[in-house]
C-alpha cells in the first residue's frame, strides 16, 4: 500500500503506540483486500458490545495513549441505572459496563449508546466516506443515503476513528456498488414487519450479491431500518438498491450501472410467510414482549402507546430506544401511557446484554428476527409477529 507521509508516521509510531497499533490493523486489512491506499473518513460508528474482547481492545488502546481524531458514535451496552430499578445486576456485569464506559470515554467517543445513529446523531451525506460498523447501520447509510462504508468490524471502525483513515476498497469504490441481482417483490408489503421478513429471506435467494429491489413503494424509515438490519443478519449484505427510491437507483439501468441484470428472483407473499414460519418459535403462552432491535423510533413508540393506552399488559413489555427518543416520549406523554399499562422504555440498551438475565429460559414475543437470532445463545425463545400482533399478545399473555 502506498501511504502518505502522515500515514507512514502513524504506522512508525511517531503519534504514539495506540495510533501505531490502529494503523497496523488498517494496513493489514487494506493489504488483505489489495487496497492501493488509505482515504480519510469524516465519520465513524463503533459497534461497542460491552463484551470481553471489546473491552480488552478498547482498554488496550487507552493504555497505549490512543484518542479518536474522528469521535465515533457507539452502540448500546445496557443502562445500569434503569436496570437496577427493575432487576438484580450481577457485580461482574456492573463492573464490565462501567469499565467499558470509562474506556470509550477516555478514547473520546460520543457516548450515544444507540444502534440507529444514522437517524439522529451521526447522519452522513451522499458520497461521504465513513467507517461504520453495526449491522443495521451499514446498509442504511450505504443504501438510503448513498454514503460509503465497508462492512466494518467494531475494531476496524475504532481504528479508523483513531487514525482518521480507512483502506480504499470494497463499497468505497463506485464499481463495487453496482447492483448484482434483481429482486422483484410481488409480496404486498403491508407493513414495516413485512420488510423484516423480506430482509431476512432475500439473502436465501441472492447470497452475498447486492440486491436491486423493484416493487417497493415509499417504504418508511422504520421499514428501511428493518430491511437493512435483517439483510445483514440473514446474510452479509451491507448495500442494496430500491429502484426509483434510493439515490443510486433512479431507474433499473442506473442501479446496474448500465448493464443488463444477469439474474432475477421474485419474492412473494408465500416466501415471506414461509420465512416467518421458519424463524418463529411455536405460539402459546408468553412471559414478556421485547422490541427495539434496532432501537425504536418515536413513531414506533407511539404505535405501542396507542395500542396499550388505558389497558393493562398481561406480561411486561420492554422497548429499547435511544436516550433522546425516551426523552421525547416522556415529553409527549407516551412514556407515561406505556408505563401505566405495565411497560418499560429502556434507553441505551441492546438485547444482547447480560442485563436481560431475568428473561433467560423464558418465552417472549418480538417483531424482530435479529432480536431472536442473537438471543438463541442465551436460552430465550421468541414468537415473531408484527408489532401490532405482538402488542396484542402482550395484552393477552399469549399468541
Amino acid at each position, binding site marked *: 500500500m502506498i501511504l502518505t507521509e502522515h500515514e507512514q508516521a502513524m504506522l512508525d509510531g511517531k503519534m504514539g503506540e495506540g495510533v501505531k*497499533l490502529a494503523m*497496523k*490493523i488498517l494496513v*493489514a*486489512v487494506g*493489504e*488483505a483486500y489489495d487496497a492501493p491506499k488509505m482515504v480519510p473518513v469524516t465519520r465513524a460508528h463503533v*459497534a461497542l*458490545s460491552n*463484551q*470481553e*474482547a*471489546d473491552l*480488552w*481492545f478498547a482498554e*488496550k488502546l487507552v493504555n497505549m495513549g490512543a484518542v479518536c481524531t474522528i469521535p465515533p458514535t457507539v452502540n448500546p451496552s445496557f443502562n445500569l441505572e434503569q436496570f437496577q430499578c427493575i432487576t438484580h445486576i450481577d457485580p461482574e456485569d456492573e463492573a464490565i459496563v462501567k469499565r467499558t464506559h470509562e474506556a470509550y470515554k477516555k478514547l473520546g467517543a460520543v457516548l450515544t449508546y444507540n444502534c440507529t445513529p444514522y437517524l439522529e446523531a451521526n447522519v452522513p451525506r451522499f458520497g461521504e466516506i465513513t467507517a461504520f*460498523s453495526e*449491522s443495521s447501520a451499514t446498509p442504511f447509510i450505504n443504501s438510503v443515503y448513498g454514503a460509503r462504508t*465497508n*462492512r*466494518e*468490524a*467494531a*475494531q*476496524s471502525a475504532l*481504528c479508523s476513528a483513531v487514525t482518521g483513515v480507512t483502506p480504499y476498497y470494497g463499497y468505497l469504490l463506485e464499481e463495487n456498488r453496482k447492483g448484482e441481482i434483481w429482486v422483484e417483490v410481488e409480496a404486498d408489503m403491508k407493513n414495516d414487519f413485512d420488510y423484516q421478513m423480506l430482509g431476512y429471506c432475500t439473502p436465501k435467494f441472492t447470497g452475498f450479491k447486492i440486491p436491486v429491489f423493484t416493487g417497493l413503494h415509499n417504504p418508511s424509515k422504520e421499514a428501511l431500518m428493518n430491511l437493512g438490519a435483517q439483510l445483514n443478519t440473514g446474510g452479509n449484505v451491507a448495500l442494496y438498491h430500491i429502484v426509483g427510491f434510493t439515490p443510486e437507483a433512479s431507474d433499473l439501468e442506473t442501479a446496474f450501472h448500465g448493464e443488463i441484470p444477469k439474474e432475477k428472483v421474485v419474492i412473494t407473499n408465500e416466501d415471506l410467510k414461509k420465512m416467518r414460519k421458519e424463524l418463529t418459535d411455536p405460539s402459546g403462552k408468553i412471559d414478556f414482549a421485547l422490541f427495539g432491535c434496532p432501537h425504536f423510533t418515536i413513531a414506533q413508540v407511539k404505535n405501542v402507546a396507542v395500542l396499550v393506552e388505558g389497558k393493562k399488559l398481561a406480561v411486561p413489555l420492554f422497548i429499547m430506544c435511544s436516550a433522546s427518543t425516551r426523552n421525547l416520549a416522556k415529553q409527549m406523554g407516551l412514556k407515561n401511557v406505556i408505563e401505566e399499562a405495565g411497560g418499560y422504555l429502556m434507553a441505551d440498551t441492546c438485547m*444482547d446484554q447480560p442485563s436481560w438475565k431475568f428473561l433467560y429460559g423464558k418465552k417472549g414475543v418480538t417483531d424482530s428476527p435479529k432480536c431472536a437470532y442473537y438471543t438463541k445463545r442465551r436460552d430465550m425463545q421468541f414468537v415473531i409477529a408484527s408489532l401490532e400482533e405482538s402488542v396484542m399478545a402482550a395484552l393477552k399473555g399469549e399468541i
Partner: protein
Amino acid sequence: MKEFSCHKISEGLAKGEILISKDDFCFYLVDPKTGIVIEPQHCLYGKSIAGKILVFPNGKGSSVVQADGMYQLKMTGMEPKAMIIKNPDTTLVASAIIMETPLVDKAEASFYETVNDGDLAEVDAARGKIIIL
C-alpha cells in the same frame, strides 16, 4: 521439506501440526476451555484447534462474536498457533493482529495440493513462507 510462498497479514513465527477445515470457521463456536469445535454441522466438530496451524477458507459470524471467540481462546491458551486463510475478512484480520496470532493468506496453489492433516509445518509470516517439515 517443502517451502511455499504466502502473504503476511498478522506477523509472527509458529511451528505446529496442520489442521484443515474445509468449512468456514467461527471462533465463537469453539469451547474456550478445551479448544474443541462445538458446532455440530462443522467438519471439525469434536476436534481441538488448540496449538494447531489452522487452514480454512473463510471466517464467519459477526465481528463481535468472532473477536470474542478468539479472545477467550487466547486467554485460556487454547488458540491456534497460526492461521492460513483463503479469503480474509476485516474482522479476522483485526482480531488476529490484536491477539498477536500469525495469519497469512495467498498461499500458493501447490500448498493446498500438498498439505495434509497432521503435517508438521512452520509459518513464517514476516518472510511470507509456509514450510511443511
